[in-house]
């Protein structure tokens, strides 16, 4: 961590000199400078919005938190200008192995095909991700990041929210048209608006140890059911940068946390697992978890994102990644509402889309948890049956659930335009799905990716059009990416065409967050305009 700045000074801001009666007014105040709040602030700033970002601490959190960042998150971070730095530092992986006892049951590859700019996952300690995001924020004058600014009060007014903020210099007040609460699982803003946070709490305890060692294990996700070194329970091993290995051990529901986390008790367990004692502890903690979400992510002018809005179990890397998807979903909508190019009702689609995604994440991670920690004798028996069938059958392998890793949701949303009846799609991303990547080449034969072209296209809607079909001109304010045809990008491997089920003339309307709003075999300007208006929440 030598090169990474992790402590930040408190600086007094002129807003603090104003009286309570004449509090400064800002368009957007984001609360919480974790990965979600930082990414949201950067996205908004890149769209031309000024953002005040408040954090109650003066440092980046240490210890063991999120480590797995998905392809989707990396593509988002590419658009924010930090993706490459994350990938350069991170450990790239895509293969997982699942063991039962000493035997490997199966292995999986999360991205078995070539032609994507980003891997299925990288592992990166959350503090690195946050540090790189803070560095990016510091390049953007439109983000005003205020450390040691703790929100202690919130009053909803007609057209704004009045915040009370505690600082080392005492309290001050700040008005905001919108407040985005990214203040984590224990969100104090959630309590201030009096929102319910309901769901299921799990009794099972897990021990996380990050250990430093040099080891020849491959950079894969290894998961054991009932391993010889930890009988009757599960274990997970995963590599992080700097020769740090994440070890996650399931413990008994009745284990005493204070005793279990003593290094002298953890060390023998891990020595048994690794077969040697040559490691140092970077971090040990015990955790339990719950799966919950808010009924509504939007409370008037206070909008919740990330762990503040929803919590899942850690199996499947669905926590930080879903928070980042919240941020990319919200940023463009909020920008349009603030510019008055879309009505405020567009924001409702944020709740519709992201609460459904939260439900999916909760469902998936709950199923994984139940498989790892069965709730009854019969559940244990069914699991035993699945594990034993996995040794000799394909279907058994696929029933064994050692965590289903995060993939982007497909949104069923009023912003999508349904496919035309006679269009005969045989593949490609449906409306509401996220855009698949593909290798393309500029006319100078310069290899690049579709996601690069999308990021370059800017921050608005994008028309992705294929081939030599009747060209339809992109409406004003809509970026255009043309594959094939004169002046278009080349599709050297044909992967763009196949991944988008393209025929000459095929066109996709992509939302600013890279989700498909509509697609056409034979686009016409009126159909495009109607889809655009729908996706912008204008009807």
């Amino acid at each position: 961590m030598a090169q990474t700045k992790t402590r930040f000074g408190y600086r007094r801001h002129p807003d603090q000199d104003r009286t309570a009666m004449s509090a400064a007014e800002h368009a957007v105040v984001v609360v919480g400078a974790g990965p979600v709040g930082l990414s949201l602030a950067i996205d908004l700033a890149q769209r031309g919005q000024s953002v005040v970002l408040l954090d109650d601490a003066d440092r980046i959190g240490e210890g063991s938190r999120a480590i797995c960042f998905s392809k989707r998150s990396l593509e988002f971070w590419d658009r924010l200008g930090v993706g490459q730095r994350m990938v350069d530092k991170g450990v790239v992986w895509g293969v997982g192995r699942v063991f039962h006892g000493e035997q490997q049951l199966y292995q999986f590859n999360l991205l078995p095909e070539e032609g994507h700019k980003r891997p299925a996952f990288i592992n990166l300690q959350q503090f690195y991700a946050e540090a790189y995001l803070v560095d990016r924020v510091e390049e953007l004058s439109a983000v005003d990041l205020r450390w040691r600014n703790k929100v202690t009060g919130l009053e909803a007014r007609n057209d704004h929210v009045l915040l009370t903020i505690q600082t080392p210099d005492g309290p001050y007040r700040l008005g905001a048209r919108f407040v985005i609460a990214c203040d984590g699982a224990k969100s104090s803003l959630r309590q201030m608006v009096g929102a319910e946070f309901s769901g299921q709490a799990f009794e099972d305890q897990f021990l996380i140890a990050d250990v430093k060692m040099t080891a020849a294990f491959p950079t894969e996700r290894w998961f054991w059911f009932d391993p010889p070194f930890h009988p009757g329970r599960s274990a997970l091993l995963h590599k992080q940068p700097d020769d740090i290995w994440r070890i996650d051990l399931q413990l008994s529901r009745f284990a005493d946390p204070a005793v279990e986390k003593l290094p002298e008790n953890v060390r023998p367990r891990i020595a048994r697992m690794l077969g040697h004692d040559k490691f140092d502890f970077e971090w040990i903690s015990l955790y339990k978890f719950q799966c919950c979400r808010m009924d509504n992510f939007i409370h008037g002018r206070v909008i919740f994102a990330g762990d503040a809005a929803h919590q899942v179990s850690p199996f499947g890397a669905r926590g930080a990644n879903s928070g980042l998807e919240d941020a990319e979903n919200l940023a463009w909508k909020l920008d349009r509402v603030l510019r008055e190019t879309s009505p405020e009702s567009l924001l409702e689609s944020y709740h519709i889309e992201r609460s459904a995604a939260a439900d999916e994440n909760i469902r998936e991670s709950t199923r994984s948890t139940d498989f790892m920690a069965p709730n009854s004798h019969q559940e244990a028996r069914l699991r035993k049956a699945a594990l034993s069938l996995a040794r000799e059958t394909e279907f058994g392998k696929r029933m064994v659930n050692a965590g289903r890793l995060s993939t982007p949701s497909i949104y069923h949303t009023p912003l999508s335009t349904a496919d035309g009846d006679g269009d005969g799609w045989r593949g490609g991303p449906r409306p509401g799905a996220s855009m698949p990547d593909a290798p393309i080449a500029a006319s100078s034969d310069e290899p690049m990716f579709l996601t690069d072209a999308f990021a370059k296209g800017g921050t608005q809607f994008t028309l992705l059009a294929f081939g030599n079909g009747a060209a339809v001109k992109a409406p004003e304010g809509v970026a255009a990416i043309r594959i094939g045809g004169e002046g278009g990008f080349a599709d050297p491997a044909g992967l763009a065409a196949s991944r988008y089920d393209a025929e000459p003339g095929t066109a996709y309307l992509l939302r600013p967050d890279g989700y498909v709003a509509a697609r056409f075999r034979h686009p016409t300007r009126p159909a495009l305009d109607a889809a655009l208006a729908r996706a912008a929440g204008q009807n």
Partner: protein
Amino acid sequence: MALSTASNFARPDDAFRAVVEAHRGLSDEQSADLDAALVLVLANHIGDLGVLNEAIALAKRRMLDAGQQQQQQQQ
């Protein structure tokens, strides 16, 4: 596809017997293990969640009926 409750075996006794014999000599615990594996194997063979859910509903309804009958007898 709907759950078929017509008689599908030409010789239903053979099918019933096959299941019975599979359990012969097993303890209750072993029998329960066998049933769990058998349910998963057969569910996968059916490969249709709708049919599986109908089968579960039918099996559960039988249990419910039995419970009600018992209650009525006690009254």
